[in-house]
């Protein structure tokens, strides 16, 4: 069942993004930034963790989970080592995605050329 829930959740988030893009003058950059903030906001009540439990790993795919991972790592570290942990643990969960995007992007940039 988590397959269906993953599909519906991820699709629903994208649908909201598309509605915002179609009906306002916001660019994709605005929408993704907004969604990251929303993801962080939802996780400050622990709500996003429940989404992951209910709907499976598909909830980690939309950019909202980036905000969730940021605050999640920060709070986990803060519980461990005090208020400084908010700074130290910020990227502890998201570094996989960021580093992968940087490294793959750079290597592929060396190999390929931009179209036209």
């Amino acid at each position, binding site marked *: 069942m*988590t*397959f269906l829930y*993953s*599909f*519906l959740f*991820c*699709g*629903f988030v*994208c*649908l909201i*993004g*598309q*509605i915002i893009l*179609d*009906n306002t003058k916001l660019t*994709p*950059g605005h*929408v*993704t*930034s907004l*969604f*990251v*903030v929303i993801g*962080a*906001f939802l*996780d*400050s009540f622990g709500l996003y963790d429940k989404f992951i439990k209910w709907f*499976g*790993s*598909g*909830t*980690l*795919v*939309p*950019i909202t*989970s*980036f*905000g969730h991972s940021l*605050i999640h790592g*920060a*709070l986990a570290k*803060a*519980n461990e080592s005090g*208020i400084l942990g*908010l700074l130290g643990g*910020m990227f502890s969960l998201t570094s*996989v*995605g960021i580093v*992968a*995007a*940087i490294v*793959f*992007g*750079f290597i*592929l*940039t060396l190999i*390929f*050329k*931009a*179209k036209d």
Partner: protein
Amino acid sequence: MNKERYKEITSKIVPKEDKVKNGIIAFLVGGLIGFLGEIIVVVLENNFNVEHKDATSIMIVILIFIASLCTALGFFDNLVVKAKAGLIVPITGFAHAMTSSMLDYKKEGFVTGIGANAFKLTGSVILYGVVAAYVFGTIRYLFFGG
């Protein structure tokens, strides 16, 4: 020609964007990527004995690699035009933005081109994500005890 007259004429010629169709496409494509992510995690867990936490990380890496490769090969842009938010909102959009801004500025050199522009589009996502997480995290840590 005044502005109103211009609008009147162009509104007849310019095709109206079908918002319902765009929404459905975004829903289906986005859903499919979430579905794919869940499949990768389940396959890794059941067939390769990977722990759940590692499986989700590998899933993210696989999706980012596919998106970066498609961007570098040059056909991701066409897909984005068709699928719109369905590809922008998932993590694939993040990888696409990063790779395409590096590729676009490759001709300006390694430092002033690729280096300076790598985060041109994804920078705002990281900046606002970090600021929001810091503010919300501080509030939760100080007032609700983490």
